[in-house]
């Protein structure tokens, strides 16, 4: 089977997709190259930076640390899927209004990490926000405005997702 391809079925942002890929094809490459969902960014490709974070069956996961074939049958939510109609979610709007991004490369990972963070703790204090985001790296902002944005998103959307 080396060099061969396998069929992979996934539900991505609510849509069923099927492609044939090599077993070594990473989920992040499947999303970007096969589906054109380029909002999921590739940073370190070793699980450290968080730019490729997606929701895998509802919880955060590094899409660079999974093979597409390995998660076949799963539901994946990418940054393109955080709202159904392409408008900004409350979290995205808070990032925008607080200038919580500069180059924006890390932002999709931060937004999806924040979706899980606020679902599990709708009223985090600053220390909990910092702790919750500690595994996502931003090289532009110094994090201050990201923390502010997450706090604002929490206050704007108690208990809601997205």
């Amino acid at each position, binding site marked *: 089977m*080396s060099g061969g391809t396998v069929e992979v079925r996934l539900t991505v942002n609510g849509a069923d997709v099927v492609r044939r890929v090599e077993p*070594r094809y990473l989920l992040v490459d499947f999303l970007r190259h096969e589906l054109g969902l380029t909002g999921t960014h590739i940073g370190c*490709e070793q699980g450290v930076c968080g730019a490729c974070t997606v929701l895998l069956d509802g*919880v*955060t*996961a590094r899409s660079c*640390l999974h*093979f597409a074939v390995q998660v076949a049958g799963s539901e994946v939510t990418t940054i393109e899927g955080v709202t159904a109609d392409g408008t900004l979610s409350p979290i995205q709007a808070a990032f925008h209004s607080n200038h919580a991004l500069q180059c924006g490369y890390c932002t999709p990972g931060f937004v999806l990490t924040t979706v899980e963070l606020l679902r599990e703790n709708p009223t985090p204090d600053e220390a909990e926000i910092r702790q919750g985001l500690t*595994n996502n790296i931003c090289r532009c902002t110094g994090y201050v405005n990201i923390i502010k944005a997450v706090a604002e998103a929490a206050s704007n959307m108690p208990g809601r997702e997205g």
Partner: protein
Amino acid sequence: MKPAPFEYVAPESEAEVLDLLGRHGDDVRLLAGGQSLVPMLNLRIVQPAVIIDLGRCASLAYLNDENGALVCGTMTRQITAERSPDVRQGCPLLAAALPYLGGKAHRNRGTVGGTLAHADRLAELPAVALALDAELIVRSEGAERTVAAVDFFLSDLTTSLEEGEMLHAIRFPKAGTTARSAFAEVGNRRHGFAVVGIAAALEVDSDGACAQARLAAMGVGATPVRLAAAEQILEQGSLSADAVCAAGDAAAQAVDPTDDIHASVAYRRRLTATLVQRTVHEAMDGTRRAAA
């Protein structure tokens, strides 16, 4: 796409896994949660011919209460164990260490058995297993053996698993009412790899004196190590500030760490002493001490 090509198989039963392991020899890697293995594949540090994915073997993910022990199936996700009331109550040292294993995204996917079988010298659970005298249940086709934690970890990334064998489950002895425990580590970043970590498991008598101490350190060698000299001082009974301080100093003298870009030998010894003190105090009074 970074990894070298490999043949991928995802059996749905442990029997099939063991059959495949037996047939493929040593050029095969088991894929559990993948949070350590996939980076190594991406970087081509490892290039196995065959990957056997355990992710479809539902029978390997369980937490059972068996004869005074908490038995954790190898594919139990770290986050599942971390949030399990049975783990928190029956095995508080394991529950205390699990949040240190990585970010939430890693713990959502990483497994208890995966990190133990991977045996990174800076992994937390090998130290916990050593401090608790946990047993590792190892299976191969038609056979099962039980390995004490002290015999399981041989070197960095190396265990006593033989060709054709897999880690089936881990048996953690449950904490009784006289057990006290704590885990602490210090790293250069909050969620990066630790520099040094200590897992402390104590037994106290009815007067609050220390009847037994088991301390394991990580980050001071190629495997976690027990800190016998410190344990002996604590087992003299008194857990006074002076006794705990002496135990920390004895531990720092006994370990044999190496220098690297992350920390010097002197710093690792200093951290060993500090973290021994911190974990023993925390185990006894249940409160986290500020960093020394």
